[in-house]
C-alpha cells in the first residue's frame, strides 16, 4: 500500500441501472434467403427480426416487442419455400436454409385479405397503423358491402380512468397478455366466447370496478387500435379538441416511488393529456402502474388552484 492511498475506502460508482443479465453464448449464425437475397442471421431470431434487420418492413398488429408473440392477426405472414401454408413472421424462428418470400402474390393476398376482414368488421378510425397498411396493400374493406356483420357495440364507460370501445377491437390479445403474465399478473380480463362472437371480457362481463382490475393501464399502452383509451383522450376526441399535431412528448421520471420509471408525458396546450412509457427502457419495458399512468392530475390541479405558482 502506497502512502498516497487514502485511509478510507471509496465505493465504486453506483450502476445507473440494474446489473445486466449474464452474457449469453453467441447464437449460432444460420444462412437463409430473404426475397432471394442471401442473409446470415443469428439462429435465435424470428423471421420478423431477420426481416427488420435487413430493412424489410413487415406489417404487424398483434405483435409488440414487450409481449410474447401470439401470432393471431396473421398480417405478418410470409411464404416459406416448400411449406403448404404461410408462416407468421412474428413467432416463427429462422432455420438454416429457410427461403423466405415477404412480397409474393400469396403473401400480398393474405395480408390484403386480413386487412379487409378487419376493416370491414372493426372501426379502425383511431388505428392509424392499420389504416396505413390498408393503403399499402390496396385493401378495399368496402367491397363486402354495407350489409355485413361487424363487432359494433356500445362504448363501455364504467370508471374514471379509461374507456373501452370494443367496436374498435381487432382481438389481438395484447391487453390480455399485458394484464396477465407478460406484465401485470392481474388477470382481470380474458377472451370469452368464440368465433366471431369472441370478445375481451371480465368475468360475466361485469364492470371494471367490480373486476380484479388495478388500473395500471398497461392494456391501453399496448392497444393498437384505440379500443382502450384514456378517458381524457376520449373526452377530448368527443369534444373535437384532440389534436396530435399540437402535442409534445416529454420524457421524465415518475415522481412516486424509488423504481424510477420513465414516463412520456403527452401534453397539449400545456396540459398532460396522456402518459406512456417507452418500450425500450429497461425499467418499464413500456409498462407502468396506476400512479405513473394516471396520477398526473395533481400537476394540473396545482396550476388551476394556485394560478401564479407556476
Amino acid at each position, binding site marked *: 500500500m502506497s502512502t498516497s492511498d487514502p485511509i478510507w475506502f471509496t465505493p465504486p460508482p453506483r450502476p445507473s441501472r440494474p446489473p445486466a443479465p449474464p452474457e449469453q453464448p453467441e447464437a449460432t449464425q444460420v444462412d437463409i434467403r430473404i426475397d432471394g437475397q442471401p442473409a446470415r442471421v443469428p439462429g435465435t431470431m424470428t423471421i420478423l427480426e431477420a426481416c427488420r434487420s435487413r430493412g424489410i418492413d413487415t406489417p404487424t398488429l398483434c405483435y409488440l416487442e414487450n409481449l410474447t408473440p401470439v*401470432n*393471431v*392477426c*396473421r*398480417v405478418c*405472414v410470409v411464404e416459406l419455400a416448400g411449406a403448404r*401454408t*404461410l408462416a*407468421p413472421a412474428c*413467432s*416463427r424462428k429462422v432455420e438454416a436454409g429457410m427461403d423466405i418470400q415477404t412480397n409474393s402474390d*400469396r403473401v400480398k*393476398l*393474405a395480408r390484403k*385479405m*386480413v386487412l379487409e*376482414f*378487419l376493416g*370491414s*368488421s372493426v372501426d379502425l378510425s383511431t388505428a392509424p397503423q392499420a389504416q396505413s397498411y390498408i393503403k399499402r396493400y390496396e385493401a378495399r374493406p368496402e*367491397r*363486402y*358491402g354495407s*350489409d*355485413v*356483420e361487424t363487432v359494433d357495440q356500445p362504448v363501455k364507460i364504467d370508471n374514471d380512468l379509461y374507456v373501452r370501445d370494443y367496436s374498435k377491437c*381487432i*382481438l389481438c390479445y395484447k391487453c390480455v397478455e399485458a394484464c396477465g403474465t407478460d406484465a401485470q*399478473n392481474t*388477470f*382481470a*380480463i*380474458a*377472451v*370469452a*366466447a*368464440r*368465433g*366471431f*362472437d*369472441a370478445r375481451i*371480457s*371480465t*368475468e*360475466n362481463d*361485469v364492470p371494471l370496478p*367490480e*373486476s*380484479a382490475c388495478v388500473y395500471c393501464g398497461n392494456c391501453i399502452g399496448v392497444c393498437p387500435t384505440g379500443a382502450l383509451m384514456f378517458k381524457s383522450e376520449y373526452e377530448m376526441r368527443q369534444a373535437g379538441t384532440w389534436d396530435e399535431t399540437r402535442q409534445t412528448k416529454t420524457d421524465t421520471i415518475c415522481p412516486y416511488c424509488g423504481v424510477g420509471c420513465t414516463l412520456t408525458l403527452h401534453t397539449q396546450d400545456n396540459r398532460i393529456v396522456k402518459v406512456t412509457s417507452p418500450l425500450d427502457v429497461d425499467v418499464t419495458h413500456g409498462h407502468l402502474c396506476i400512479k405513473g399512468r394516471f396520477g398526473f392530475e395533481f400537476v394540473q390541479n396545482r396550476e388551476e388552484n394556485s394560478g401564479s405558482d407556476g
Partner: protein
Amino acid sequence: MDIRVHGPKAIAAERAAVDSVLGAPVPLTGHAARSRRDLLLPALHAVQSRFGWLTPGALNYISERLTVPPAELFGVATFYHLFSLTPQPPHVIYVCDDIACRIQGAEVRCAKFEAEFGPADNPVAKNGVTWRRSPCLGQCERAPATLVIEAGEAPLSYSLLQEEGLIPQFGQPRLRLLRRIGRVDPESVEAYRSDGGYRALERAIQLGPQEVIREVIASNLVGRGGAAFPTGRKWDAVAKAVARPHYVVCNADESEPGTFKDRILMEGDPFAVIEGMTIAAYATASERGYIYIRGEYPLATRRVDAAIRAARVAGLLGNDILGSGFSFDIEVRRGAGAYICGEETALFNSIEGKRGEPRNKPPFPVQAGLFGKPTVINNVETLVNVPLIILDGGQAFAGVGTSGSTGPKLFCLSGHIVRPGLYEVPFGCTLREVIEMAGGVPNGKQIQAILLGGAAGTFIGPEKLDVPLTFEGTRAIGATLGSGVVMIFDETVDMTDILTRVAAFFRDESCGQCVPCRVGTVRQEELLARLKSGKTIGTKADELALLKEIGQAMRDASICGLGQTASNAIESALANLKLPIL
C-alpha cells in the same frame, strides 16, 4: 395469485358437485392448486350436469379451488357450447340440423319440437324441456339424430333412438376392425380376452419397445383422423424425445360432420382402443394417457370409462402391467361441444383446462404437446389398427390395400343410401363398390353429389364414382379421404342449402383466434347468402372471384386445419357440381 371473486358464495350442493371431481377441499394454494387445472373441464361438467347450467356460486368455488382467475374461467366456460352460463331447463334436446340430417327430415323434426316445446333455446322450460339446434351429432347412420342431455342428481344422457343398431356387415367373416362389434360384450374384459384381446399387448411386451415401433413403421399405418400422418414416425419421435414425461393421447373428439366411426368403435369395442393406447404407451415410454371423448357421446364415454376400470382391476392398466414392470394409466376427458377441440393442439389446451384454441406449429406435439411434453396423439381408429399390426406383423399389414394406403379402412356411409352405417373394406375399393355394398341410392334416384371427408372435405360429382378410396386415389382427383366420410346426395337435394349449412358450421365452430378464420368464415357465409338470394355485389363472377380470394386467405394464413379447410367443400362444390346459383 390473489383470486378475487365477487357475487354469490357456493352453496353446499354446488361445493359437493365440484368436490366430486376435485376431492375434498384441502388448503392448496398457488402452484399446487394450479397444477390441477386439468380438472377444470371435468369440474365444469360436474356443475353443468348437476344444475343444468354453470351457477355463479359454483364458478366462484372452482376459481378459488384451482386458483384460476374468474375472468379466465369465464373465458373457458363460454368457449364450449354444451355449457350454459344462464339457467336452463334440466332436459335439453339437441336436434341435429347438419347436412346428413337435413336431407333426412331434420327440419320437420325441428318444427315438431318447436310446436311441442316452444322456440329453440327457450330458457323457459315447457314440460321441463328446452331444445336447440346442433351441428353434426355423429349419429348420421340413424339420421335425423337427437341427443338428450339431462341434468340432476343422477342424470342420464342418451340419444333419442336408444337401441344400438347392428353394423350392416355384422357376421361377415373377413372383418378386422369391426369383428367384435355386436358380437363380444363391450363391458366384459374377460369376453375381450377370450376373443383374442390383449394378446397383442403380450406380444408387444415380448418384442420390446423398439421392435414394436419397427413393426408400426413397417406397416405404413397412417393416421385415420384426417391428416394421414405416418403413425410409426410419430411414435419414434416421442420414444426418442429426451424431455420427460411422455404422454399418449387418444383423439376421440370425432366431430367432423358425417363421421361416426370412432363412436361405434368405442361403444362396441372399447377394450381395443385401450389396448392400442397401452401398446403406444409401452413403445414410447409413456406413463399416462388421456382419451378425449366428444361431449355428445355419452354411451361411448360410459363404455370407455367402464372398460378402463375393468382393465385396471384385471392388471391391464396401472402398475406393472402383465408383470412387465411397465406402468401406464388412462384418464377420460369429455369435450363440451367444440369441433375445434378435435384439432390436436386445441385438444391439448382443452385437457389443460384452457380455451380450446389451437397452437401454432412448430413445435409439433411430438416435441411439445400435452403440458408442453412430447406427446403421441392418435385417432381412435388408428389405435384400433395397432393390435392387428402387432399380431400379424407390420409386413403383413402393409400387404393389405395399396402401396400408398395400407390396411383396412372404415367408411361412414350416410345420406341417400339404402343401408347407411359403418363399413370396413381393405384400402383400394372404389367409391362405386362401397356405395353398392351399402345398397346404392334408394327409390331409384340418381346421385347428384358425394361428399368425401366431411365438411372439411370435398364434393365430387357422380362421374367420379370409379375413384379408388385411397389417399393417393382421392388426391389424384383433387379430393380427400379425410375422416372416411362418404355422404350421398340424390338428385332431389337443394345443394345450395347444403353449402349454406356447411358455411354456417365453420362460422359457428371457428375458435375466433386468428383473423382469416374468424372473419373469413363469416364473409364466406354472407357471400353464399348473397349468391342464393341473387342480391350480389357486382356480378356473380365478381362474387365468385371474391369467394376464391376469401378461401385462399383462409387456406394460406389460418393458424390451424379448421380455417385452412373451411372453404374446401364449398369451393369444390362450385367447381365440381352443377349448381343453380351459378
